[in-house]
């Protein structure tokens, strides 16, 4: 192991072979960047891209991933699952519910450990959760090394947004023990968004995004403001009540009841039957995420009786309604917490994480391609971006002094059509929650006949206008109203801009007919604003500064 550690600590930027790891409580995945800077999730030796975060020992041999998952049926005592969330925690503060059907966590010298038989013909040994994580990461590292043909020695790992410093350092230590230098720990939703924004067709734009992750044992939702490629988390929520296991539970109960009807015994009462029921329910759930029908079949479910059944999507959604609704409420709650309205969410892309079926979106439909891979791909992208830097550089760049900046409370934009503040139409240039310093440029048409124009820089606040009945006429804000497809006649909600404080006025003289004016706003770190306005294609222009408040 000494060589491993040496490589983890001493890799110079040039020698780094970095990967992205999404280390989830239920599943992990690994991604690498190929030579053309595209991140791809790679399969382990079993061909799985979603590698269950489970490690199991049979006769001293180590099994990982899907193979280890199968051991939950026969060998649950020597199988450790759902251990990610125990890292760096006190025994008192963990919720061991999910480890009920695997090795049980125990208190061990201020940390958490499992008693497992991990060597042949010896007494069961006590292995700390840190060591378990190390072994799991080592397997992931090995898979990636086999794939790339180079010894992987560093990684960017994703973590939930509510990971404490202690948990972070525990994870870093576990990774270092596995011979991986942790270049950076990045937040899961941000990693997903980064990968999503790395699609070739995506453009850098200002948008509010909800990243909802219905995970195996927990659900995490984050509202992220993406401003010119810089991400700010506005609000997060974590929930342990509406997660993948609860969807599994619904299916388990459904099939168990059916089984009781036929055979009179409850498979949920027997440890092994329960394990089989759990595994197959999970598989069925995943099948339902893709198709409209799914089979459920288990050999010798209980008392030697085989069981086979099918379920369709509609039925499933009916019985799982409670969980799905809970998840939706969670999303809506977070949006509210962020001080936004669902109409102000521009993209809601990752609602389907591996565990889920269709989750209805508050405003727009989920758009992501293969959302389960996004986190790992985002981590790999980040790894490829920063692997050239010295560790010290990375530390300094991620220091709070750099990352904590001022964010605009109001949008800043120009008025169109008329200079009158009460009637002009506000066009945002910089959105609210934009991190400063920031710079944006827009092109605005001039009136048909050209001539002198007024550029009026104003602040704008958005609010949700609720109209009680179907409005006969829109008050000129039609372009701002969201594409609210299911118009209900009683209540119509739309987003409108309200013009706020006037910041500055400038004039651009003698514009040509059909020309355009370029307005560039540059907000400095101290909120001083520089405005440049000029006609596109013309020389000169107007430049002025608004002093900091």
């Amino acid at each position: 192991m000494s060589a491993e550690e040496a490589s983890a600590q001493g890799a110079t930027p040039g020698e780094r072979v970095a990967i992205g790891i999404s280390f989830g409580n239920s599943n992990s995945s690994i991604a690498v960047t190929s030579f053309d800077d595209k991140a791809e999730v790679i399969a382990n030796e079993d061909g799985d891209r979603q590698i269950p975060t489970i490690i199991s020992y049979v006769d001293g041999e180590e099994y990982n991933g899907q193979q280890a998952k199968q051991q939950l049926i026969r060998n649950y005592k020597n199988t450790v699952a759902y251990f990610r969330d125990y890292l760096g925690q006190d025994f008192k503060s963990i919720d061991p519910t999910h480890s009920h059907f695997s090795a049980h966590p125990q208190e061990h010298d201020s940390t958490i450990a499992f008693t497992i038989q991990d060597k042949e013909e010896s007494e069961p040994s006590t292995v700390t959760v840190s060591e378990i994580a190390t072994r799991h990461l080592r397997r992931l590292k090995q898979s990636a090394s086999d794939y790339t043909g180079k010894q992987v020695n560093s990684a960017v790992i994703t973590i939930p947004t509510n990971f404490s410093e202690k948990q972070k350092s525990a994870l870093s230590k576990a990774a270092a023990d596995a011979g991986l230098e942790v270049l950076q720990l990045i937040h899961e939703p941000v990693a997903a968004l980064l990968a999503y924004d790395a699609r070739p067709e995506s453009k850098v734009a200002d948008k509010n995004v909800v990243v909802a992750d219905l995970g195996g044992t927990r659900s995490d939702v984050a509202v992220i403001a993406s401003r010119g490629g810089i991400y700010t988390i506005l609000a997060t929520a974590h929930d342990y009540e509406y997660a993948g296991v609860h969807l599994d539970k619904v299916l388990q109960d459904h099939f168990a009841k059916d089984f009781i009807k036929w055979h009179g015994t409850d498979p949920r009462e027997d440890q092994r039957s329960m394990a089989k029921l759990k595994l197959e329910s999970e598989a069925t759930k995943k099948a339902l995420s893709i198709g409209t029908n799914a089979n459920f079949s288990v050999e010798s479910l209980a008392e030697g009786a085989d069981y086979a059944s099918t379920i369709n999507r509609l039925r499933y959604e009916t019985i799982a309604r409670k969980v799905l609704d809970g998840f939706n409420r969670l999303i809506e709650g977070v949006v509210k917490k962020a001080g936004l309205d669902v109409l102000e969410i521009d993209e809601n892309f990752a609602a389907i994480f591996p565990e889920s079926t269709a989750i209805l979106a508050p405003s727009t439909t989920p758009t992501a391609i293969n959302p389960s891979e996004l986190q790992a791909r985002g981590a790999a992208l980040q790894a490829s971006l920063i692997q050239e830097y010295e560790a010290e550089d990375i530390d300094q760049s991620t220091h709070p002094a750099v990352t904590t900046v001022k964010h605009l409370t109001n949008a800043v934009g120009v008025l169109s059509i008329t200079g009158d503040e009460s009637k002009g139409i506000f066009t945002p240039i910089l959105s609210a929650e934009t991190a400063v310093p920031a710079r944006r440029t827009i092109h605005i048409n001039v009136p048909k006949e050209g001539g002198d124009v007024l550029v009026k820089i104003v602040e704008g606040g958005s609010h949700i206008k609720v109209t009680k009945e179907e409005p006969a006429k829109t008050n000129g804000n039609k372009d701002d109203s969201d594409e609210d497809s299911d118009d209900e006649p009683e209540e119509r909600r739309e987003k409108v801009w309200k013009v706020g404080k006037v910041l500055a006025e400038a004039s651009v003289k003698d514009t040509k007919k059909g020309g355009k004016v370029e307005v560039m706003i540059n907000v400095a770190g101290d909120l001083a604003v520089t405005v440049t306005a000029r006609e596109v294609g013309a020389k000169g222009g107007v430049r002025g500064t608004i002093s900091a408040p």
Partner: protein
Amino acid sequence: MATHANVNLPLPVLPEGWSGEKDFKAIGSISAATQRSIEPVGPHFLAHARRARHKRTFSEDDRIQAQENAKKVEDDDSGEISEPEDPSMLLRDAKDWKTTTPYSASPNTATERLKTKSSAPTAKKVLKHHPDKRAAAGGTEDDSFFKCIQKATEVLLDPIKRRQFDSVDERADVEPPSKKAAKDGKYYKLWSATFKAEGRFSKVQPVPKFGDEKSTKEEVDAFYNFFYNFDSWRSFEYQDEDVPDDNENRDQKRHMERKNNNARKKKKTEDSARLRKLVDDAMAGDARIKQFRQEANASKNKKKLDKEQAERDAKEAKEKEKAKAEQDKKDAEEKAKVERESNKKNKEQAKAAVKKNRRVMKGSVKDANYFVEGEAPASAINAVLADVETIQGKIDADETAELADKLRDLKLAADIKKVWTAEAKRLVDASKIKESDIKTFA
């Protein structure tokens, strides 16, 4: 930042009488901002961090970045030295392009080249040797070298073809050292170079190093294991005979393909055998292996000797023990014999003493005239003697002797009776006899 949004709604017309200094009027200032943490992720954040740490503004940063990019291009350019070609190469016929190595123009060494992906070397050659240019410069219109360049570019740009060429590019090989050359301390250096060159064909990278005399046994073992299980990407398509392109002679084409395939397989096998022999040779001359073997033997021998010694010791100890046990047994037997004999004597003596004492006892009661006045009746004699015998039967030799001593010098019947009564009482108290058994001495 090149991106900008377009807005179709027109700007308002400048109202009459609007004026401002330099056409600009600052009116208010931006509302107070909130402090939040941005996520340290993504290319745009990196740009932000760069600006924040170096305290650059947007336009400064744009300029510096642009400069850096420009510099890079220049460096790349200057790296491409246009060296003169070997005149013999220029005379090559286009048909012989395979013998012209695609790397001919590159200034790098063969091994270095394997690391680079760049295929630039031919680019400048094209400028120089293009038939049009040559013609313009008054040269011949012979374009055979240009065709070679074209072929070379084709090979270098296609990763598969390039790999095929690299497979057979022997200029990067380092010949294994002869025994003589490797003798005087250069052994590790020379073989290292050879194996470093061989290592370029490995699918698994990095390749373990040959090491030197200080390498540990694990390192040396790892090295030889690696090379004995060498997984090579080397292939020999590049040396194929050309398959005729025409559609007419299909059989001929297939025949050639088969032939090529067989040749490739054969070459691959030969290559594996060559490498194996190479490793064998290296191992045979490797002083470290000998040393490790000696060490292993020494430790093995040591173990063996230790074991034998231990066995010998154990045997000796056992024999000693055995002899001692026999002696002990003999001694014990003799002792027992002596004891037995003396015991017998003692016993006889004791028996005689007891008999004598008993006689004394009986004599005492007789002296006491059986504790009656005048002629003793037979019944009284019997009763007294029965009691005496009862008591005699219950007491051992010592007690008998003691009792006899007490009785020996007594003449008075009352005294004798007193002694007997006391003795009977003692025995009754010790519950050796029952009170009812005693008649006279009760």
